[in-house]
């Protein structure tokens, strides 16, 4: 980060290559829209570049970048909610780039592909139905393996709040994925 603060583009390239996949997937899982996720991940790294001079290594770098990501995702979810509110054309057809549409990549046969798509759809729907904070805490724990302390820093709440968010999120998912069969 010190090198990036001095304007070293090669250091920035290393950082981008190291974190782009995890940041992209974090955004994608939170907002559930691939196209918007790809736009937002650029915005995250733009902010990293712009804030490099003011960066103080108090916590892990991933916690810092995930915090930027979480804030952007929350803003995106709010503006998406506003867009839906004012849009007269909102319908289920808008799901062109949503999470369930893109998860069947790489399935070997048509039958497997359909099955994988259906499974992914169920998981994605269950995840998207969680409240924002619960979803964020759960994703950070399940897919990024952050500790409660780190999650608390990312979503700006206490460790006990993270614990209770995760308990509630897991309970909801248990209920929603009750009929899910492998």
């Amino acid at each position: 980060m010190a090198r990036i603060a001095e304007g070293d583009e090669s250091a920035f390239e290393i950082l981008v290559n190291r974190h782009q996949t995890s940041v992209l997937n974090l955004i994608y899982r939170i907002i559930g829209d691939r196209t918007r996720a790809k736009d937002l991940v650029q915005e995250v790294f733009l902010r990293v570049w712009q804030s490099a001079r003011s960066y103080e290594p108090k916590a892990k770098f991933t916690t810092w970048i995930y915090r930027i990501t979480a804030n952007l995702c929350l803003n995106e979810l709010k503006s998406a909610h506003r867009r839906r509110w004012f849009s007269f054309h909102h319908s289920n057809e808008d799901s062109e780039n949503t999470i369930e549409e893109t998860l069947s990549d790489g399935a070997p046969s048509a039958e497997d592909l359909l099955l994988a798509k259906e499974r992914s759809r169920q998981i994605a729907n269950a995840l998207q139905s969680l409240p924002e904070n619960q979803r964020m805490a759960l994703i950070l724990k399940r897919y990024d393996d952050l500790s409660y302390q780190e999650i608390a820093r990312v979503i700006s709440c206490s460790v006990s709040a993270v614990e209770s968010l995760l308990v509630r999120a897991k309970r909801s998912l248990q209920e929603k994925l009750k009929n899910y069969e492998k």
Partner: protein
Amino acid sequence: MKCSKVQKKLSAYQDGELKPGERDKVTMHLQDCQVCCKQYAELDRVWQTLGELQEIHPDPWFYRQVVRKIKEPREQGLLPALHHVFWLFRAPVAVSIILIIGLVAGSYLGSLLARCDLFPFQNNPLSDSRGTFFTSMRVFDPAPPGTPAEGYFRMVSYKENDSR
């Protein structure tokens, strides 16, 4: 340890967030209690299920896109801010514009109709000219000489001149 207490701690146990002493107690309880063990197995099943959500991959030219974004000039100045404010208040602004247009068009029409004697009550011999006067918006014209209004305006202007 009681079942209710263990069940509250199952999530933290699964996430490896319990202190070593507590963790051992929960482990021992799970070995003996079928109900809690079943609940933990269900929690674990859901956790494994979530793992089936596949990863997506960034475009190969992602870094170049970021660099381009960094180098492109950002929107600056008052215009984007004004645009944002307008977007926030677009509904009240639209209503205000419609009201103003309605008022101006209404007063123009009223004045036009009154001038052409097209109001229905104008043909009624019982009606006086006050109806026409108000609907035509002539109330905003300068006060006619000899009326109390004209006297009031004269008084006000006299005071103003006097104070100077």
